[in-house]
């Protein structure tokens, strides 16, 4: 019988497409944590998260908000002395946690990503007003008002689209997607 994959192996396998070194190469120097502009807002720093993955602390890793605070700026990736593609690791963790449906409930990131991708399925283009629905109602009253004010300002300057754009060959486009992932309703 085949050996059961450890969590650490699973995550490393998810990184096959990125060409960085494996997570085992981490020397725990903390350059990533010192570089990342989101570190102060994360419950585990990137350095700590890598150590936790290597220690197979699956539940703790998935319960952390760290990967959802990654802005994909790749600053950690270009600075890592062990050449680990840390930003790609964060993508892999996002995919893994959405796949397992295991993430902190109050996060907007997973809903936002899903809304974004659904918008593309439907029209081939992104459309800000639809995307806004994924986060507007999570804002406080003050934040909501500021957001509405900003949107009004952009509207007055002609910078908000009133109608969603859509590509011409949408049928082909959706059949193309259907060859990659089976999606209900796409024929």
């Amino acid at each position, binding site marked *: 019988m085949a050996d059961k994959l450890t969590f650490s192996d699973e995550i490393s396998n998810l990184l096959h*497409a990125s060409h960085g070194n494996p997570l085992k190469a981490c020397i725990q120097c903390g350059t990533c944590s010192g570089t990342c*502009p*989101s570190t*102060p*807002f994360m419950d585990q720093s990137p350095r700590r998260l890598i150590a936790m993955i290597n220690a197979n602390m699956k539940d703790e890793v998935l319960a952390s908000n760290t990967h*959802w*605070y990654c*802005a*994909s*700026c*790749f*600053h950690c*990736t*270009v600075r890592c002395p062990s050449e680990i*593609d840390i*930003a790609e690791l964060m*993508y892999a963790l*996002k*995919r893994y946690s*959405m796949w397992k449906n295991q993430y902190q409930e109050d*996060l*907007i*990131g997973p809903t*936002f*990503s899903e809304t*974004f*991708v659904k918008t*593309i399925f439907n029209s*081939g*283009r*992104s*459309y800000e007003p639809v*995307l806004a629905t994924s*986060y507007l109602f999570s*804002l406080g009253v*003050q*934040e909501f008002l*500021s957001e509405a*004010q*900003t949107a009004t*300002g*952009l509207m007055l*300057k*002609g*910078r*908000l*689209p009133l109608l969603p*754009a859509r*590509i*011409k*060959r949408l049928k*082909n*486009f959706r*059949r*193309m*997607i*259907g*060859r*990659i*992932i089976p999606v209900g309703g796409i024929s």
Partner: protein
Amino acid sequence: MKKYAYFPGCSLEKMALSYNVSSIASMNKLGVELQELDDWNCCGATAYFHIDELLAYTLCARNLALAEKENLDLVAPCAGCYKNFYFTNAHLKEDPDLADHVNFALEEDDLHFSGNISVRHLMEVFVQDVGFEEIKAKVSRPLKDLKVATYYGCQILRPRKDHEETEQPVFFEDLMSAIGATPVDFPEKVRCCSGALIITNRKAALSMVRNLMMSAIKSGADVIATACPMCQVNLECYQKQVNQEFGIDLSIPVLYFTQLTGLAFGIAPNKLRIGTELVLPTPALSNIRRGSADA
């Protein structure tokens, strides 16, 4: 006339229309034609990669295949689109099995990825393909005395493609010098604007925007120049929220670098959609003499 396949991207359709028109107008002055890709689709921003990698590659590859059909190199002004296309192109070229799988899907739209074009960011077209000498020759209204914070952001620099300098690049400053402007020493120039965190993690995002604004203002800049619609929106449209969040009162205009090149090439401000910003750049630009501006 040199010609590229042009991928404006979703943001440039409306939110960043000023980037779109100023890119086309500036390139036109340099004798470069940007031919919009017919029926392009969204590059996926960062969201596709959160869901499914193969899907993300396929959606980018459709645009690459559209450009291949025209036999033109693909240029994107949005740093995010550029990064997605650049690396999709590179990965598919290196991995024939991945390319096969993607091509199986592309058949549905009668398209095929062969990997025979290159992907350029608009900034690279200015700096590398056209070059500073030709740019200088086209300047009719040098942006004398305009102090510019050259904001690189992330994705025109990172991830690294080869062995380029990613910590202290200077090509953006050199471009600004070429059009007569004065680049200032802006220490945060390669730090992140927070990207989509402005939507998903507001507190973290606002602190990142604040750091950039403070650094630019402290460096003595009149204006921040960007090469990405996400950076422009985050840095400009959230200044009020930053001030509310941190109890400060800061303000600095944020323009696309192509609006500045357009001005220097003598294009009228309204043709560059200057004036559609939430933080008006008018005071910053008032020192620029009219020179030989055309209408």
